[in-house]
């Protein structure tokens, strides 16, 4: 079960970070979070992904995770030890894959505008609020049915707990 409050330092990306940048196609032979994390964001050049391990939360602009439906994009981010991604908006396949991977994601365009790299933020999942330097930002809650998947740590766990009779 994920924490009800996630707190930490922020790394900030821009708009349209695609899933090829998050994890290149040649690494899709892996599904293990730790193996994938070794190559996460390496397209961004020297220092990646090592730099990201010093941060707790990724903040991004519009359309985070666009492009390929590769589930390993969210798995790689989890493998880096990142606890949540807050974006102005997500691409739909990344949004689904993150929930299915048990990675906390939050849509909050207002926070994106206000936050800078290295800032600390706190995400209160139950109340749908983010606090940052005395400011408060509200975000929409996920539908209950979808939140249950996230709370169980992802779709595989959810499925295991809810297998149809005889399967």
């Amino acid at each position, binding site marked *: 079960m994920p924490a009800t409050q996630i707190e930490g330092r922020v790394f900030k990306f821009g708009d*349209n970070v*695609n899933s*090829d*940048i998050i994890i*290149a*196609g*040649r690494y*899709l*032979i892996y*599904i293990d979070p730790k193996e994938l994390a070794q190559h996460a964001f390496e*397209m961004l*050049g020297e220092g990646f992904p090592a730099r990201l391990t010093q941060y707790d939360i990724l903040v991004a602009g*519009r*359309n985070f995770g*666009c*492009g*390929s*439906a*590769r*589930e390993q994009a969210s798995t790689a981010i989890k493998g880096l030890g990142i606890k949540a991604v807050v974006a102005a*908006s997500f*691409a*739909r*396949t990344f949004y*689904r*894959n993150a929930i*299915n*991977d048990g990675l906390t994601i939050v849509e909050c365009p207002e926070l994106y505008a206000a936050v800078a790299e290295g800032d600390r933020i706190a995400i209160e999942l139950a109340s749908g609020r983010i606090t940052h330097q005395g400011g408060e930002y509200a975000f929409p809650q996920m*539908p209950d*049915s*979808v939140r249950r998947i996230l709370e169980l740590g*992802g*779709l*595989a766990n959810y*499925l*295991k707990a809810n*297998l*149809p009779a*005889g*399967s």
Partner: protein
Amino acid sequence: MGMTIAEKILASKSGAARVAPGEIVDAYPDVVMSHTATWRSVSVMRRIGATKLYDPERLAIVLDHISPAKTEKYAQDQQTSRNFAREYGIRKFYDVDAGIAHLVLMEHGHIKPGDLIVGTDSHCTIYGALGSLGTGIGYTEVTSVWVTGKLWMKVPTTLRFVLNGQFVIGVSAKDLMLHLIGRLGADGCGYKSAEFYGDALPRMSISERMTMANLAMEMGSKCVFVPPDEKTAEYLRPRLQDPATQYQPVYADADALYEQEIRVDLSQLEPMVACPHQVENTKPITEVVGTRIDQAFLGSCANGKYEDLAVAAQILRGRKVDPRVRLIVTPGSREILLQAMHSGVLQTLVESGALVTNPGCGACAGDGGTMADGEVSLSTANRNFIGRMGSPKSSIYLSSPATLAASAVKGAIADPREFL
């Protein structure tokens, strides 16, 4: 209030009389497609201890990315997928010789108008070319659909695109889509459905419609629809394997609610190119003419179809590819390869200097045609993301097959209108 096509299909597949945008439904897909990712879904199935499928007849498996296997790891993974298909008696199984999953499934009559198709590939939107709702999902979700038969889906809002007029010579469906992606942006249709209408549609071939429905993913579309017409029926007639197979085309109601209407006069369009490293970074060809290229890739689910190869051959007939350019042609499927053999298109391409590979995803999925530092590739595929075809210091431009062929001859990005 009436319903859009996406609303009608999601209502029908979730057993509801009607649904509205924003609602979450449990929908039962008609086809669940998995490609080279199949082994990952198999591993999840084992991990959760499931052994039974909801309905093996709904599974379709095509080994298309990295085919045939190029390393031992790929070989092991493909063996896992193959063994799974045998063990469960999956009849819609296609091995490494068949081609790109999307094209193979449509060619073999596995996709019907009104169907709901989910699969491990973002370009599942292509099934909208036949009036079906196709959308991409992750491999764990594929396992979930295998076992439970269903998937939670949010009902999208819909944008209505109206295409009027005729393309000028040298301009095609690819240019139209690059124009739209540039105009609306990479998330301009984000989480939304796109429906295409207009007086231009009855003239557009199924191949062009596939290019449109495929590329619409690059503006974020969840699903895309070209309403079925006589051309759709003609395409499907010889392909529906069981003569008793019936399908019910789904059309929007006249009073369906659209978020926005976007109109395009096709006669005003010119050849377009997407510049590195985002598909939305589009420019009219006149602004990039003369950009040197090292490689030209003609293939992919966007533009590796027979008509795409034939258009390129029309330009390349009697001409030679510039010696500084590697022209790689990857037919989308075995059927396309055979058609190109019979018609002479393949011979024209090879005589011009093209390297022809086996059918499949090829260089678009990083299988061969890897780019070195500083190299420039022109590609008919749907993505030009940094490092997608090799070095992060290489760059990818995207164009139509006609622009690609003209550019391969010139050794630099060229305007196809000079060649036609």
